[in-house]
């Protein structure tokens, strides 16, 4: 078994002293005594543990160190807050901007913000408010009220980003750990499926943004972890006239430009999944394989009638997305199978796709209700509707009665009179910490009213993003 090799704040590291189930955060704080990176929640929601990671072929990305297992950084460069300032102590521009904006109070969240801003600066995006909020959505501050932090981001325009160091990040290994705990990072699809067949109880790790929680929250220490992240076949994105196809290891961040082009409403929804830290690691396939009733992408993939390509050592099969999830956190994946790709057919003339997410907070919140609709209209009538909801049942579920009630009728606000009854026929949701059952029913029906208004060119704004 090989050591984990990476660049840490510009210095080459080869680490073989710690188990491969050690989180990057515990490694940095404990083994390396780099205590600038903080633990605020150990669930990837507060951002205090944010560090930046880069591959030789890519730029700096912000990630949550609390959710990453150490071997996930093999072959990368990692920068922590300790690596920002110059060797003479001169502050990095993001640090200087935070100081000058009076953007620190208690300071505990600050290193995480500095690293999120560092990645934002590297990306070269215009410092517009919408981009800034997107870049900061994964970082919580309880003291400042954010205004000075956002101001600090605005000051970054035109400052030069840090080059990715090349030392120590070229060589990547494919197996780590010892007999107690193994971490495999195969670099071919055949290698991956062979391992999945050999270790049927292994954790299959995409970005680890969900499985990482079982390490931090439930103290689970899996004996075998198999990462999909290095398999080139699973990183493929193909765009044809007929479909957009995402490999099983494509992250949200990698998928977003293509979703923007083909399914902008889907892309807008994906930008509200987790934070950039999460989306830089998390995968579309992982969200699907999770089979959570409140996953945001399954309703979209089902409404779009996506096809899931499943691969194993013995071959390949394809099933429609709406047959992939078979129950509460259960899927159609057979032992030895992985999600090779997700194929989303492009919209035909007359078709529109719209997705909505309702939550207490706009950014980085788990949906109370998520709804996805593929709408086909012709001459003012609704000729086709695929409607899927999350948060309304134990799994992502199709609104069969809603589809039946609306399809083939004139498409306007007037035809929605019976929609509350149809929703109530389709769903019996629960009260929980995200919303009451009554809210879910009322809002689910009202989202169809919003849909009708938005797809029939009502001039008045029907949602807050339009303001």
């Amino acid at each position, binding site marked *: 078994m090989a050591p984990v090799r990476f660049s840490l704040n510009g210095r080459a590291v080869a680490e073989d002293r710690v188990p491969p189930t050690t989180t990057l955060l515990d490694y940095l704080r404990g083994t390396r005594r780099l205590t600038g990176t903080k633990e605020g929640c150990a669930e990837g929601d507060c951002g205090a543990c944010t560090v930046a990671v880069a591959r030789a072929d890519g730029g700096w990305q912000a990630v949550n160190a609390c959710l990453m297992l150490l071997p996930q950084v093999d072959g990368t460069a990692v920068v922590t807050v300790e690596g920002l300032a110059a060797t003479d102590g001169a502050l990095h521009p993001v640090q200087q901007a935070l100081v000058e904006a009076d953007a620190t109070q208690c300071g*505990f969240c600050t290193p995480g913000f500095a690293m999120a801003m560092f990645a934002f600066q590297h990306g070269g995006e215009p410092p517009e408010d919408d981009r800034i909020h997107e870049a900061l959505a994964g970082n919580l501050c309880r*003291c400042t009220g954010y205004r000075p932090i956002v101001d600090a981001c605005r000051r970054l325009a035109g400052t030069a980003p840090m080059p990715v160091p090349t030392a120590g990040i070229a060589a990547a290994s494919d197996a780590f750990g010892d007999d107690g705990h193994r971490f495999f990072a195969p670099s071919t699809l055949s290698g991956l499926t062979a391992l999945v067949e050999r270790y049927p109880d292994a954790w299959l790790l995409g970005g680890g943004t969900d499985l990482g929680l079982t390490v931090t929250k439930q103290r689970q220490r899996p004996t075998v972890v198999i990462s999909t992240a290095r398999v080139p076949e699973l990183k493929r994105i193909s765009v044809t006239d007929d479909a957009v196809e995402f490999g099983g290891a494509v992250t949200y961040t990698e998928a977003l430009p293509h979703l923007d082009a083909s399914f902008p409403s889907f892309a807008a929804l994906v930008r509200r999944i987790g934070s950039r830290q999460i989306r830089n690691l998390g995968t579309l396939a992982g969200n699907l394989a999770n089979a959570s009733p409140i996953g945001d992408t399954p309703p979209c993939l089902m409404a779009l009638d996506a096809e899931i390509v499943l691969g194993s050592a013995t071959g390949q099969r394809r099933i429609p997305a709406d047959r992939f999830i078979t129950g509460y956190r259960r899927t159609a994946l057979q032992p030895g199978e992985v999600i090779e790709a997700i194929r989303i057919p492009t919209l035909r003339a007359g078709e529109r796709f719209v997705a909505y997410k309702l939550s207490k*907070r*706009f950014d980085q919140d788990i949906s109370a209700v998520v709804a996805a609709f593929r709408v086909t209209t012709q001459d003012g009538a609704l000729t086709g509707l695929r409607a899927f909801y999350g948060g309304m049942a134990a799994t992502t579920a199709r609104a069969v009665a809603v589809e039946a009630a609306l399809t083939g009728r004139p498409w306007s606000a007037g035809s929605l009179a019976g929609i509350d009854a149809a929703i109530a026929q389709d769903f019996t949701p629960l009260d929980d910490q995200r919303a009451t059952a009554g809210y879910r029913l009322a809002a689910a029906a009202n989202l169809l009213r919003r849909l009708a208004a938005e797809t029939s060119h009502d001039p008045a704004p029907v949602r807050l993003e339009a303001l």
Partner: protein
Amino acid sequence: MNAPPPTPTGTARRGAHAAVRHDSAVGHVTGRAVYLDDMPLPPNALEAALVLSTHPHARLRGIDLSAALAVPGVVAAITAGDIPGRNDIGPILRNEPALADGLAEYAGHPVAAVAAETLEAAREGAARVVVDYEPLPTVLTVEEALEHKLYVAPPQVMTRGDPDAALAAAPIRLSGEVRCGGQDHFYLEGQIAIAIPGEDRDMQVYSSTQHPTEVQHGVAHLLGLPFNQVTVEVRRMGGAFGGKESQATIIAGIAAVLAAKSGRPVKLRLARDDDMLATGKRHPFLIRYDAGIDAKGRILALDMTLAADAGNIADLTPPVVTRALCHVDNCYWLPHVRVTGLACKTHKVSNTAFRGFGGPQGMLAIEALVDDVARHLRLPADTVRARNFYGIERDNVTPYGMAVEDNIIARVTGELARAVDLPGWRAAVDAFNATSPVVRKGLATVPVKFGISFNLPTLNQAGALVHVYTDGSVHLNHGGTEMGQGLFVKVAQVVAEAFSIDVSMIRISATSTGKVPNTSATAASSGSDLNGMAALNAAETIRGRMAEVMAERFAVPVGEIVFDDGRVFARNESLAFGELAQLCWSRRVSLSSTGFYRTPKIHWDAATCTGRPFFYFTYGAAAAEVAIDTLTGELRVLRAELLQDCGASLNPAIDLGQIEGAFVQGIGWLTSEELWWDPSGALRTHGPSTYKIPGSRDVPPVFNARLLADAPNREATVFRSKAVGEPPLMLALSVWLAIRDAVASVGPVGAKVDLDAPATPTRVLAAVERVRGR
């Protein structure tokens, strides 16, 4: 990379009223500022974890630690029976145990703790502790507690005039009910303490606490030690907001008992979920009122009950209720009034201090009433407010008998209204709503008057310790704690001002019970008022001695000695400050002094709820615009304009940060932050994935906070400044009232808006449907 942070190089004196940057800003951005979890531990130190009750109310028939002790690496495990002293850390009342003793009273109640060689082993051990619960009947809501008259402390009643007769005589009667939720502090640094045993049972404790003295007392009680054997130190906290006032003592106490038992240093750092499950929060309140008003909207009589959900024990609930009662008047003259405060016992985590300390809930109560009155009478809410404002010469006495002598309510609200063109703003909101059936806007203002001083006069004292060294550098220590609010730099500015030296000459040091004893919590917005004055007292004592040496040296009257910009002048002669310090030493004059301060004028009679509990009031006003989606209940805050009275601000940059931060925290309390218990009594919002504090996008895109200009404190506070920590949080009530305004816009004019806090999408949508009459 490891170079020391650059020292400030400015030569100008940066004393009182200067916008000096936070002293740790460079440490914060480089990650070099040390928090407790970053401290290197002694090599034999242990890490610890808590065992939390899984039942909201259960007899503990037995706790079996054997499986925990069998986990490799586990060194010690304790239950209440292992506490050598008295199992009591109650800040006010007695019998509030650190570890549940025979009875668990909330899901999350610490019942045992485990220490091990590693954190992983400690948490594994804690998970293996077997607790035999005998479940008991539960009371989970304020309504149930009211029904059974279950209280953690006696009711408090504040009465003035004859409210019953005035209610009966009033031309119009309005009654109503409104609820506000609790709030988790969500300090980014969770609760943590390190206990290091020393010689002769001494215990050194590093605690992330706002109240080192209370930690000292709690640890001493638990270990059965005199106070002088326990020393508590804190350099900085990663946020606190009241959550580390009494709650930190639980954590430090358990760490100390584990350290005493094992004889080894112990660090107890709570995982976020344990922190949110085990420690107290802001009190939810149920408010019921019966008001008598006239046709102009004047409140002639008020009978109001404020029922706080105390949780399982009193903790700080009695004074929280007192402060709520002292703030139901907000800015309004209430001629005949009875306000009853109830501290309801429920089988939930005991609620505690949180920025505002009952004040926000009291103010929400009266503002809900004013809003109801305005809608009932179809009058603009600001008109109703102005008609009820305290007078200057008459109608100027609070329900608790304190004259409002520093009333600038009309000035503050007037300046804000003019600065933001309220009529034009109102017209724009109405015009938008006229053509927007789905998305509706709302606009509201709120005035705030907040009383400064701890309600209990005894607590309004502070100590400081100042040393001047012979190079002219100054060591500063005081009883206040730094939680990010900028207290340390403010007090350093006070000392810089006293000596007329640059603030960079002053080294701020960690708060320690060994340096300044018998301190009060850094709370009630009082940190700089109290500790600033104590430090000023110490500095002035030393300056007086130095002036005498200078006078003697140059043979001039001491009254002519001038300290100015790093030098000390005696007519045409001068010495650098450090040269004079050296001269003092050589002449055997002490360059060290303690300082002390006690707030004057204040008194309080708890039996009658009367007195002058507050040295002064601070004032503010806000206007906010929101938009709601009437299909989904989603909301956004579009604009907020704030004006806050800080007296002659000690540090405008720090104060601005407090105003903005408190306001956004208030938005969170009133909108997205919802604590949700399932029917079994388990808190289901115990991490940031389920408990949603505001993010950067939730800050209004148009957000202007201003400090009131030319408003020195009438009272002789430190350089005529005013406290700032809590008051601006209540400015966020403007957001909640604006949501009510937006909801009202979909119903008939005059319809009552029935909206509690927090205004989650669920509550907003339900309120929209109710106002529409569905």
